[in-house]
């Protein structure tokens, strides 16, 4: 009877199903039509908004399909008919898979192929996108639909859950004086997966509870409890087990075995111009986001509590050539002579705009084959610093690190180039309208790399312009996330003219015709901890010389 019920739903819902299928088709069309650079602002805006509309349409179709045979209540005719509950549930799932997700799958394939990707890549991408949306959108929508009788009730219920979660999240944020452990780190995917699993488990739990027992009150209670559990997961996922999990799925844990951190007082105190604090080994960072070429300058800031940075001179050795070392977290303890802990804390970094960044690159080579010397900050609350700055204390620091290795580069002609691979995506280049930048735009149907470096290189001489580097701080080993956009777009502007520089770039206007854009993706290979213990230190000795201020 599964097919029989499915056909009844199709007969009833074909106008909505066709509308949602059209939304998916228009969505794919807009993505392809806007081209790699997204020159048309109108198309870009539509292409930005439409995926959300299509996702809402998908969820509405799923919910309405369930509502054709509502579960709460006692007046529905189907309840007294000889209809197997299992058949009804399977018929609804069949409808969701074939009628709601079928057009999505086809539109995914069309968009991917229309953007120039190969068959296998598109098939894999469409399956991944379909699976993500099935698990993270359709199943939760089904779960909510089984405890409601209409779309209006469902929207009300969803709003109630969102408000409850939001309220609890806000209250918990106000009560906690530290942000959640995984927030703004490359490990945040673990929390996202746990939350996704929570939603999935609840949806999967509510479906049989409703279809086989019609325990609506219990199911609604379960959904309300999910809002509380969501907040708990958000705040309570602990750092250490998460890092251990991350380390256990690393591709090449042994690669970091030679990396050593030592406190090196001979390096001396940090000397920087007043104002901006340094950002590890990168001179300039740019966070790329879909359809946005706006650079975001990453600076170290402070948390709401007034803090004072102390910069430890460190020597880092054993970093493989061309690798990136990312600092994910720093924990430190100040210990008195009698062994008692005077202060323990963890350092945090913030970006000035946009996403917060909680890591910095401390090493980058091949330019730095020798042991790297760097200053790494520890942030102390100003009252703690004032109290302890002149005391001789023991300092123990734990650095939680990730080592990233470059993946095969994507090289394309600087002017009107086009290249790519299925792992990284497809990229195009052109000179921008101002004539001082090379505009690079890429699309990928897969997960973005954790970090990337882009530079202009003279093909004849091998000279390079200063690279632009970016990190998304995402060490997820796979892509299973909710994103309304099927293809992730990202881009950079590579300057080849800079009036503020006294010397020209190695690759400038006349050399562009025989130059290339080189894109180097980096992926995390190993996650590890290094400890530095300093038996005696006076904090005031390691404040920057120019008086760089925190807070």
């Amino acid at each position, binding site marked *: *009877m599964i097919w*029989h019920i499915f056909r*009844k739903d199709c*007969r*009833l819902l074909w106008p909505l199903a066709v509308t949602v299928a059209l939304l998916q088709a228009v969505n794919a069309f807009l993505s392809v039509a806007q081209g790699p650079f997204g020159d048309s602002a109108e198309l870009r805006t539509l292409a930005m908004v439409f995926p959300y509309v299509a996702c809402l349409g998908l969820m509405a179709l799923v919910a309405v399909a369930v509502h*054709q045979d509502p579960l709460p209540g*006692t*007046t*529905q*005719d189907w*309840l*007294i*008919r*000889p*209809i*197997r509950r299992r058949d009804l549930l399977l018929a609804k799932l069949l409808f969701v898979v074939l009628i709601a997700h079928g057009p999505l799958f086809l539109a995914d394939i069309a968009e991917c192929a229309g953007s120039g990707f190969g068959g296998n890549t598109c098939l894999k991408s469409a399956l991944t996108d379909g699976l993500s949306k099935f698990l993270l959108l359709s199943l939760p929508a089904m779960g909510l639909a089984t405890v409601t009788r209409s779309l209006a009730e469902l929207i009300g219920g969803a709003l109630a859950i969102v408000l409850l979660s939001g309220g609890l999240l806000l209250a918990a944020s106000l009560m906690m004086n530290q942000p959640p452990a995984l927030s703004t780190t490359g490990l945040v995917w673990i929390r996202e997966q746990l939350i996704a699993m929570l939603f999935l488990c609840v949806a999967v739990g509510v479906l049989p509870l409703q279809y086989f027992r019609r325990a609506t009150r219990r199911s609604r209670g379960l959904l309300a409890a999910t809002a509380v559990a969501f907040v708990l997961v958000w705040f309570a996922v602990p750092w250490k087990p998460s890092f251990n999990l991350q380390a256990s799925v690393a591709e090449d844990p042994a690669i970091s075995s030679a990396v050593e951190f030592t406190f090196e007082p001979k390096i001396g105190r940090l000397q920087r111009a007043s104002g901006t604090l340094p950002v590890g080994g990168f001179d300039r960072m740019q966070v790329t986001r879909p359809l946005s070429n706006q650079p975001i300058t990453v600076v170290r800031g402070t948390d709401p509590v007034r803090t004072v940075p102390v910069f430890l001179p460190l020597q880092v050795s054993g970093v493989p050539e061309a690798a990136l070392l990312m600092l994910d977290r720093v924990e430190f303890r100040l210990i008195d002579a009698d062994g008692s802990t005077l202060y323990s804390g963890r350092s945090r970094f913030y970006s000035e705009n946009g996403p917060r960044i909680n890591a910095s690159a401390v090493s980058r080579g091949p330019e730095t084959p020798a042991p790297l010397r760097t200053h790494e900050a520890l942030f102390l609350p100003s009252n703690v610093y004032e109290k302890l700055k002149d005391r001789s204390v023991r300092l123990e620091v734990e650095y939680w690190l990730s080592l990233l290795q470059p993946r095969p580069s994507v090289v394309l002609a600087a002017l009107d180039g086009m290249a790519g691979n299925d792992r990284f995506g497809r990229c195009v280049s052109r000179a921008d309208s101002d004539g001082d930048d090379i505009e690079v735009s890429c699309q990928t149907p897969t997960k973005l790399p954790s970090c990337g470096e882009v530079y202009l290189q003279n093909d004849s001489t091998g000279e390079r312009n200063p690279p632009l580097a970016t990190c998304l701080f995402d060490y997820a080993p796979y892509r299973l996330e909710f994103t309304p956009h099927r293809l992730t777009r990202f881009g950079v502007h590579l300057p080849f003219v800079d009036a503020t520089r006294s010397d020209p770039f190695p690759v400038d206007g006349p050399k562009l015709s025989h130059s290339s854009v080189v894109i180097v993706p980096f992926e995390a290979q190993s996650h590890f901890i290094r400890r530095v213990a300093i038996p005696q230190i006076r904090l005031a000795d390691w404040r920057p010389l120019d008086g760089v201020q925190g807070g």
Partner: protein
Amino acid sequence: MIAAFHEVYRRYGKHSALKGLNLSVPEGSAFALVGANGAGKTTAIKILLNLIAPTGGHANVLGIDSRALSPREFARIGYVSENQSLPERLTVGEYLNYLRPFYPTWDRDRESQLLRQLRLPLDRKIGALSHGMHMKMLLLCALPFRPALLVLDEPFSGLDPLVRDELLEGLIEEAGSMTVLISSHDLAEIEGFITHLAFVDSGRVLFQEDIDDLSARHREVRVTLDREPSSSVALPDTWLDVRRSGSVLSFIDTQFTEAGLPHRIAALFSGIRDISIEPVSLRRTFTTLARATQTRASSP
């Protein structure tokens, strides 16, 4: 028994809809569940069909606990309720096409016959049917598979007499071939075809009886005396709806026996000029019993 309630309780928060309901529906009967609005009739039926769970006790239907009803049993149960909602965007024909494969015993000839009899338009959307047509549609969906048990919950509520008669015709034709459990607060319309009756009040069954026994037990009695009867005479509790008008005393005797009544009257009154004994309509019996119950409940 095709259906039975055993000490069934049902609470909605602080309100008890059923307070230990005991009831047995004999197979092949046309069983009326009567009671005022809010007496618990609909709650009882919903428990019987596993639409809601009892708070205590249990109900059996077709030999199994109602909580364990499966499609196999539902294929033998027809249900018509004024509150039943059908898929409004399907047409009458489409919904019949949808239901047919679920019932192994669906009789296409009976369906055609009912369609003609009830005069339902096959191509009309269910949502566009009037209340009367909606009820006829429910009956149409409940009869073609020849259910062993047909449950009707206030099926005639809000219907005009013409539609009511059409529905009744449909029902009477089926009577005898199946068990009918019908709930109603108005007995006039079902008097002609029910065989058993249970009177439900405040979640309990006050009495359950074969309709013939009930009719035989109840009589409207009119006693004409020589003079006005004394108000100090203690009348039997089994005499209900007692009225005095001059020298005439009228009442409903709920324990009537041909031989016993004249003796009981003679024992209480002298100067009896005439005793007239008439059968009581089911409606009158019901309203009399209902009033008496309410009076007893409200008295300190």
